[in-house]
């Protein structure tokens, strides 16, 4: 790299928050029992929510289909316990608001759905059949974003995929669920990667792991045996595990603004997703449980739990000995992008990678007010997308919509690096989120107004002012 490129074209952004991973890194994944009732929301993923296919009184088993949708960008939902549906009603959802949910009383026996059978070995299947199987298994991205996996495995033919990246970066502080999977079940993770590579027709697979997890690198390297698969160690840096950052770090390719990884020939899947795919092909059991890191300094026994979907946060915390003091903040996910909960009576969903409880003291409460900025530039240096967060926040606050667009607000994926780095505790992400929502709202409003105008003035008469 010449001096000029070093000066002008630096590595973009990132921050180095403390990892706090030692709380749970050495805790083997253990099975958690579901509480007596599980609440399974019909919105478990990005895309169309499901419609319940069971009703009050229905008998269900583990793996029984309870929700499905006709939409392509969606994935069916299955029961995680055996028992009886006691209610179908809106319930508090960890991503906010109330969402229609199927509430099941567990009989504690976990009898599997008899109609399930072990699928044909994936080696014998066509890519098309793999997509179908992955969809039927209700598998979505388990990294947190929860995008239906079968959609990602089926990119349009215009975009040939040459590389599958298996995301084991797990760059969020506190979380160790992917780490434990790579340590304990590397064969299953690898198997999942092979399925994904076959499904998208990619000759190359990369398992990407941050270099602060040498054990995981070792364990994954031990099971990879050529076949176009390599284990790649990444510099530890948040948000190294963000798709676009990952692709840039590993392949030096930039996903065009507004584009997707497939536009540069890449599919990125989370380690947990690969594991879930492999498990489905070996057992035939759809996605009804997942690994959740339950952690925080006030959790009595921080753990990596295999939790049935629908288990309440309160029950998951109880399975870890409960709290040593009342929590100040409880998050779904990590501290950088996690969602703060107002109640512990929300269920674990497919996208719940962690439950993090912070004490009142640890909770950096941001007093809302005017955004203060001393122009130190830390947010600009921290932004992995090369944006200017302080201007975006200020323009959002002052409602300068055109300026927001000029500075490419839509490229922000809300990783939180800017706000993390800000010495004045400016609520940058909050303001930028608000700006994005408002921009989108204005766009829809203008479109519908344009449609109204077009409808009101049909034909060629529209041009006449008189």
């Amino acid at each position: 790299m010449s001096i000029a490129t070093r000066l002008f074209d630096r590595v973009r952004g990132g921050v180095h928050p403390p990892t706090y991973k030692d709380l749970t890194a050495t805790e083997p994944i253990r099975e958690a029992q579901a509480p007596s009732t599980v609440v399974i929301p019909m919105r478990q993923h990005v895309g169309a929510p499901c419609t319940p296919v069971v009703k009050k009184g229905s008998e269900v088993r583990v793996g029984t289909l309870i929700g499905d949708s006709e939409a392509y960008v969606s994935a069916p939902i299955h029961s995680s316990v055996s028992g009886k549906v006691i209610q179908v009603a809106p319930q508090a959802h960890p991503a906010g608001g109330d969402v229609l949910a199927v509430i099941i009383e567990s009989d504690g026996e976990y009898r599997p759905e008899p109609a399930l059978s072990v699928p044909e070995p994936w080696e014998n299947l066509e890519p098309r059949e793999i997509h179908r199987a992955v969809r039927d298994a209700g598998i979505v991205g388990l990294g947190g974003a929860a995008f239906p996996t079968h959609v990602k495995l089926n990119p349009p033919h215009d975009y040939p995929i040459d590389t599958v990246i298996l995301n084991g970066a797990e760059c969020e502080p506190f979380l160790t669920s992917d780490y434990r999977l790579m340590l304990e079940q590397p064969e299953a993770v690898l198997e999942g990667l092979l399925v994904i590579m076959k499904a998208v027709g990619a000759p190359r697979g990369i398992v990407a792991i941050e270099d602060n997890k040498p054990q995981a690198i070792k364990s994954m390297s031990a099971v990879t045996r050529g076949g176009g698969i390599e284990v790649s160690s990444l510099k530890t840096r948040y948000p190294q595990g963000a798709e676009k950052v990952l692709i840039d770090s590993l392949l030096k390719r930039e996903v065009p603004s507004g584009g997707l990884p497939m536009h540069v020939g890449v599919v990125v899947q989370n380690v947990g997703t690969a594991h879930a795919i492999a498990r489905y092909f070996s057992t035939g059991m759809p996605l009804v449980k997942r690994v959740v890191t339950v952690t925080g300094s006030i959790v009595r026994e921080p753990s990596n739990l295999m939790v049935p979907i629908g288990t309440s946060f309160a029950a998951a915390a109880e399975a870890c000995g409960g709290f040593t003091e009342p929590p100040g903040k409880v998050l779904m996910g990590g501290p950088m992008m996690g969602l703060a909960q107002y109640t512990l009576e929300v269920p674990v969903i497919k996208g719940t990678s962690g439950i993090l409880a912070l004490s009142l003291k640890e909770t950096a409460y941001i007093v809302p007010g005017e955004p203060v900025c001393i122009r130190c530039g830390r947010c600009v240096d921290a932004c992995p997308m090369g944006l200017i967060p302080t201007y975006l926040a200020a323009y959002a606050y002052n409602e300068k919509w055109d300026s927001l667009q000029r500075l490419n607000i839509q490229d922000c994926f809300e990783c939180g690096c800017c706000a993390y780095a800000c010495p004045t505790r400016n609520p940058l992400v909050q303001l930028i989120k608000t700006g994005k929502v408002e921009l989108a709202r204005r766009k829809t409003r203008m479109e519908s107004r344009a449609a109204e105008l077009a409808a009101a003035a049909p034909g060629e008469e529209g041009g006449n002012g008189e």
Partner: protein
Amino acid sequence: MENNLIVSASPHIRASVSTRRIMLHVVVALLPVTVYSVVIHGLSAVWVLIASIAGALLGELVMEKGRRLPVTLDDCSALLTGLLLALTLPPMLPWWIALVGGLAATILGKQMFGGIGHNLFNPALVGRAVVFVSWPGYFVAGYAKSAAIGIANTASHKAIQTAVEVASGASPLAAMKLVYDPTTSPTGLRGVPQGLAGSSYYRPLLFANPWGCLGEVSALLLILGGIYLVATRVIDWRIPVIYVGSVVVLTIVIGRDPLFYMLAGGLLIGAIFMATDYTTSPLARNGKVVYALGLGLVTWLLRGWSNNPEGVMFAILFMNALVPLIDRYILPSRYGKVKEKKGEKEAGEVVPG
């Protein structure tokens, strides 16, 4: 369970950095040179320091009280402004002039624009500019009469002293300008004042220079302060290194002594502590590079071809004015601002919406 859960937007952890801590880091970086300045200049320096800091704090307090805003003295930015201003003033300056400078710094330079983060010009340099244009005599003759010249009795000190006395009490760089005229003696002494020819004048400039502003007593201590600030990630290395580097290169181009240009005068304190001021320098690293190159060029022009010895101060104030322009057009390298890969569908189809 009783529910006291706090709900707020991510991120939920923050780096342990605050405005106050940043300002105090800079103060710490300036402490050695401040203390040493008192050692060299004696009591006169103490009065300048106290008056300047008091003026800056008072200016901030009065304006914030007057505008019924929360008083922000505890962020230590006004303290830093006062200290920085003092270090750019001559030791023989009467205390009341330093006080006026401090008041001007925070009132005219900062609060008039809306307070921290909003000012266009470096507040300390605004204060200095006010003092400089109001009482210019002290900036020509206010240096050499300092109390501590007696300690400097080596040959090289004598040489500088002679040059400075020839120029009736200016700083070495100003003396050079007054004594040495490049247009009339182009084959002369390669850019240093007559009395300094052939002597090792670097040593006093590095270690003990009584002929300059408070902060110019030792180039070495300034450089150490700069290293401390880069190491603690308070400042980016780009601005000071590129600024000083470009002055050095340009000085070599016109065949003058680059080390003398670097060590004498306000270049180091300006490059390390003034040009790196957050509010008045560009946000993005790319912008900082452009800004620093501009600073080098303007300083070189002013030092070489203006009648005024104050190259650094006016260069920084001038470039301050260009920062909004730089921030608008010199953006960070944005991710995803790429052409679509060849061999795929026609461009334009990729980007939805």
